[in-house]
C-alpha cells in the first residue's frame, strides 16, 4: 500500500460557475428575524444582490426573497445556514423551479418640454405608469422581471435619472408551468 500523494482526488469537482439564485424564505414574523438573516449574510461573507421582506397571507409569517450569487457549494451552505436559523420555517431555492419574479422601480427623470414625449413613449413600451409630474421632472413606476427593470433604466439613462429606487425582487413558485 503506497502512501497517498498529496495531489488529490478530494478537490472540489470541476469548478462550478457562480450564478444567480433566487431564494424564498418563510420566517416567523418576529422582532429580529430580518436582522438575523441579513446578519447571517454579512457574518458568513455571502453576496446579497437584493433582499425584500413583507407580510404574507398568514400574518405570523413573513416572506423574504433574497437574490444572491455563488457556486453550488456556497448556495448549498447558504440554504442550509438559512434553514438553521431558529425562526426559519421554509427555504426554497426557486432557481430550480419555475417561478414568477417581479421587481418595482421608481424613476425620477429630468424632463423638458422637448424630451417629455420621448420619455412617455419609452414608458408606454415598458407599460410604465406616470406617478408624479412637475415642470422639470417626471416620475415613472415600472414593474417586471429584473431584466425588464434593467432595460427601462438603461433606456432612460440618457435623459438624466435624478433619483431611482428599486424594491428588489419578489418571487413565487409557478403552479402552471407556462407563461400566463
Amino acid at each position: 500500500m503506497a502512501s497517498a500523494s498529496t495531489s488529490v482526488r478530494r478537490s472540489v469537482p470541476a469548478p462550478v460557475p457562480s450564478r444567480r439564485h433566487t431564494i424564498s424564505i418563510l420566517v416567523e414574523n418576529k422582532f429580529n428575524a430580518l436582522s438575523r438573516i441579513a446578519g447571517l449574510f454579512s457574518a458568513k461573507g455571502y453576496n446579497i444582490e437584493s433582499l425584500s421582506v413583507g407580510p404574507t397571507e398568514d400574518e405570523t409569517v413573513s416572506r423574504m426573497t433574497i437574490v444572491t450569487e455563488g457556486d453550488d457549494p456556497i448556495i448549498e451552505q447558504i440554504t442550509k445556514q438559512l434553514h438553521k436559523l431558529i425562526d426559519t420555517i421554509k427555504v426554497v431555492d426557486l432557481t430550480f423551479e419555475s417561478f414568477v419574479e417581479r421587481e418595482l422601480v421608481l424613476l425620477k427623470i429630468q424632463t423638458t418640454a422637448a424630451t417629455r414625449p420621448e420619455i412617455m413613449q419609452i414608458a408606454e413600451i415598458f407599460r410604465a405608469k406616470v406617478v408624479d409630474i412637475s415642470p422639470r421632472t417626471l416620475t415613472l413606476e415600472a414593474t417586471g422581471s429584473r431584466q425588464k427593470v434593467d432595460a427601462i433604466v438603461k433606456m432612460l439613462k440618457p435623459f438624466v435619472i435624478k433619483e431611482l429606487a428599486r424594491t428588489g425582487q419578489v418571487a413565487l413558485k409557478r403552479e402552471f408551468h407556462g407563461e400566463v
Partner: protein
Amino acid sequence: MTRESDKEGGSKSGTVMTGAEIFARALIEEKVEVLFGYPGGATIGVYDVLRDLSDIQHVLTRHEQGATHAAEGYARVTGKPGVVLVTSGPGATNTVTGIADAYMDSLPLVVFTGQVPLRLIGNDAFQEADIVGITRQITKHNYLVRDVTELAKTIKEAFHIASSGRPGPVLVDLPKDVMARTAPFHYPATVEMRSYNPIVEGHQKQLKKAAEVINGAVRPVLYVGGGVILSGAAKELTAIARKMSCPVTMTLQGLGAFPANDPLSMGMLGMHGTWYSNMAVHNCDVLIAVGARFDDRVTGKVEAFAPEARVVHIDIDPAAISKNVAVDVPIVGDVKRVLASLLPLVKQLDTTEWHSKIAGWKRGHPLRYQSGPEIRAQQVFHCLGEVTGGQAIVVTDVGQHQMWAAQFFPCIQPRTFVTSGGLGTMGFSLPAAMGVAFARPNLPIVSISGDGGFQMNSQEMTTIVQHKLPVKIFVINNGFLGMVRQWQDLFWKRRYSQVEMTSPDFVKLAEAHGCPAFRATTTSEVEPLVRRAMGYSDGPVLVEFVVAPEDNVYPMIPAGQTVEEMIDIPLDPAGEGVTIFDPGSTAVVQIRKEERHGVRIH
C-alpha cells in the same frame, strides 16, 4: 417561593406573579440546580426573589466571564444546560466570550441578561447594551422579552433550543420593567415550534449506503468528534468500532468518546495529533466522520485531507455536512440513534494488515518527550494519567499545555476532558473547572493552565476557595506564551515578540486566596506533588510546575499544510532519556464515587 410553598399551593399554575417570580419558578420547572451569576441594577428585582429561593444554588463568580465558563464546564460534564444570570450593559458584554466559546463547541447554555426598562431601550441609558444584537451571531438563538406574558414560554423555548439538536447557547434579555410586571404563571409542558424540528433519525437509504461503503473498506478509520459525547453515544461508538475492528481517532472535543487505552485508539488527529492517526487518515480508504465538523485544525489543507477516502459523515447539523470537505455519504441525525441503527448493518472487517501498518507508524513515531533535566509538561500529564489511571476530569486552558494534555493524558470516559476547542479561549480552565466541581463534587478535577491563561481569569480562585471546591489547580509555568512562541520559533525566524511573560509568585498568590500551594522545579518533585495534590481532600490545591521554557509541541502539521509537511519531535525513540508514551499501557484505577473531594491514591 420554593417547592415547599408549591406543595402548600403557594404558587400553583395560574397564580399571578411578577416577572422575577416567573423567572425563578421557570428555573425550578427546568430543574436548574445551580446558577452562575453576578447581580446589578437591572437584575436587582430578580435577585430579590432569588434570595429566598432554596432550590437553586446561586454561585457569585468574580467576573461574568467566569460565570459563563463555569456554566460551560457544568454543561460539558452533565449534558444539561449551564445557566447564567447577569446584569445589563457590562454584565452582559462580559458574557460574550463564554457565549462564543459555547457556540463554537456546541455546549448548551442559557444566559439571562438584565436589560434597561423597555422605554429606555435605544436611549443610551445607563448600563445599556444591545446584547441581543451583539450576540446574534454567537448564539443558537436569542430573545428580548417584551411582554411578561411571554416570559414563561420564552424560557421554556430557550432551554429546549439550547439542549436539543446541535446544542448551543441561548440568550434571554430581560428588561427590568418586564420583570416587575405581573402575569398568571403557566409553564408549558412541551414546546411546539413549526420552525425548529431537528432531524434525529438517520435516513434508511443513507444508512444502507453507508453500510455498503463501510463493509467494502480495507483501511477504515473512525474520525470521532465532540458530537459523540454531546449525543451520549460513546457506548454505541465503542460497539461499532469493536465490531468493525476499526481504528479510531478523536478530535480534541472527541477525547473520551473512545477509551484512550483501547488497542483500537490512535489518540487525537490534526495539527498536533499523533503521527500514526494522521498517517492513518491520510491513507485510509473509508473515513467515517461521526459528530465532527472537519475543522481546519483537523484537516490542514482540505484538498489533501484523506485523499483516498470515501467519506461517510454522520452529524445532526445538516449545515456541517459538505461544509469543508465533500462527503460521499451524509447521514443527518442524532449520532447515538444513527450509530445504533448502523451497528447491525456493518460487519466485522479484516483489518489485520491495516492495523499492522498503523502499528508500524506508531513504532517509528510514538508520542515521546525528553525526560530531564528540566520538568516537561508532558511528564506532568503522563504522571497524572498514571496516578489517576485516567480517571479524573481534566479541564484545560488553551495553548501548548492543552495539546500536551490531549496527547499525554489518557482519557478513558466521555465527559472527562473539558477544553475550549473551537474558540480557543485562554482563561477558560479555572472557571470551567469551578463549574465542573459544582456538578461533580465527588470526582477528582484537575484544572490545567499555562502561566498566561491562568492570569486571565485567576479571580475565580476566590470563588473556588469560598466554596471549598476540590479542584486541583496545575499551573504549567514556562515563562512564555508558549504556543505563540513556538510559532515564532518555527515560522517567524525565532523573532520573539511579546511572548515572554512575567508572573506573580503563583504559590504566594494561591496562599493569599487561602489555597494551599506547592511548586515543583525538578523532575523528581513531579510525581510526589501530583500524588499529594490528588490526595488532598480539603478544598482546592495549587501546584505550579516550573517547566522547560522553550519546548515545542510535536507532531505538528503547520497550518494549512498536509501530512507530508508533518514535523515530528526531533528525538530518537530509542535515544537516551527519551520517554515513550503509550496510552494502551494505562492501568485503569477504579475510583470510588462516594469518596468526596478527590481520589485516594493506591
